[in-house]
C-alpha cells in the first residue's frame, strides 16, 4: 500500500527567507509525486509534479521540489517566501502502471505561515 507523510503540521518562515515543506512517501515502484496548495475556502490547486527525469522540478509561483529516491522524499522549496504563500500544502503519491484510474494518496497537509 502507498502512503505519504508530511511530518510538520505547521511551518513558520519569515518573508524573504527560503522555505521547505517536507514530504516522504512509500510506494512500490517508481512513484508519481505531486504538490498541491489550498487557500482558505478554496479547493486544492496543482503546483508541480515529478514523473521521471530531472530530480529537481519547477512549478507554479516560483516553487520547486526535489525528488530523492534514496531518501524517498519529495520536499517542496522556494528560495524566497512571500506572505501570499501562506496556505495549506498537500503532497500526494500514486504508483505508475496502475491504469488510468489514478487514485493518489494524500498527506495530511502542512500549514505554511509566512511572517512579514
Amino acid at each position, binding site marked *: 500500500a502507498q502512503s505519504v507523510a508530511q511530518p510538520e503540521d505547521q511551518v513558520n518562515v519569515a518573508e524573504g527567507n527560503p522555505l521547505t515543506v517536507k514530504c516522504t512517501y512509500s510506494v512500490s515502484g517508481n512513484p508519481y509525486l505531486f504538490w498541491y496548495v489550498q487557500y482558505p475556502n478554496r479547493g*486544492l490547486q496543482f503546483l508541480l509534479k515529478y514523473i521521471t527525469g530531472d530530480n529537481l522540478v519547477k512549478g507554479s509561483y516560483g516553487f520547486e521540489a526535489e525528488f530523492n529516491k534514496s531518501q524517498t522524499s519529495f520536499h517542496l522549496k522556494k528560495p524566497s517566501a512571500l506572505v501570499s504563500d501562506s496556505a495549506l500544502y498537500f503532497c500526494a503519491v500514486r504508483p505508475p502502471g496502475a491504469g*488510468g484510474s489514478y487514485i*493518489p494518496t494524500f498527506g495530511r497537509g502542512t500549514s505554511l505561515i509566512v511572517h512579514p
Partner: protein
Amino acid sequence: DAGITQSPRHKVTETGTPVTLRCHQTENHRYMYWYRQDPGHGLRLIHYSYGVKDTDKGEVSDGYSVSRSKTEDFLLTLESATSSQTSVYFCAISESKSEGQPQHFGDGTRLSIL
C-alpha cells in the same frame, strides 16, 4: 481554472435527513472523485468514477452512495446523515490520456449536520 462546479456550497441539515451533493464539470474528463477533508486527516477518498455508471469505493465509503448518469455530473448522497459526516466535501476530476495528469478540484461544499 478547470470547469468544476460544486453545489450547494454550504448546507446545514439535521441528523437522519438525506443529503445530495452535486459536482458538475465542463471538461469532459473521464474520472471524477469525491473526497472529504477533516482537520488532522487531510483528504480521504469516498468514492470515484471511471466512466458513466462506473463507480467504485474509496477508503471512507460507509454511509455514502454515488451516481453518475452523465459524463459531466457526479452525485454524492448521504442516505441518512449523521453528525460524523459533518465535513468539507471536495469533488475532483482528471483526464485519462496520461497517468501523470494531476487532479483538478472544485471549491468544496461545507456540510454541517446538527
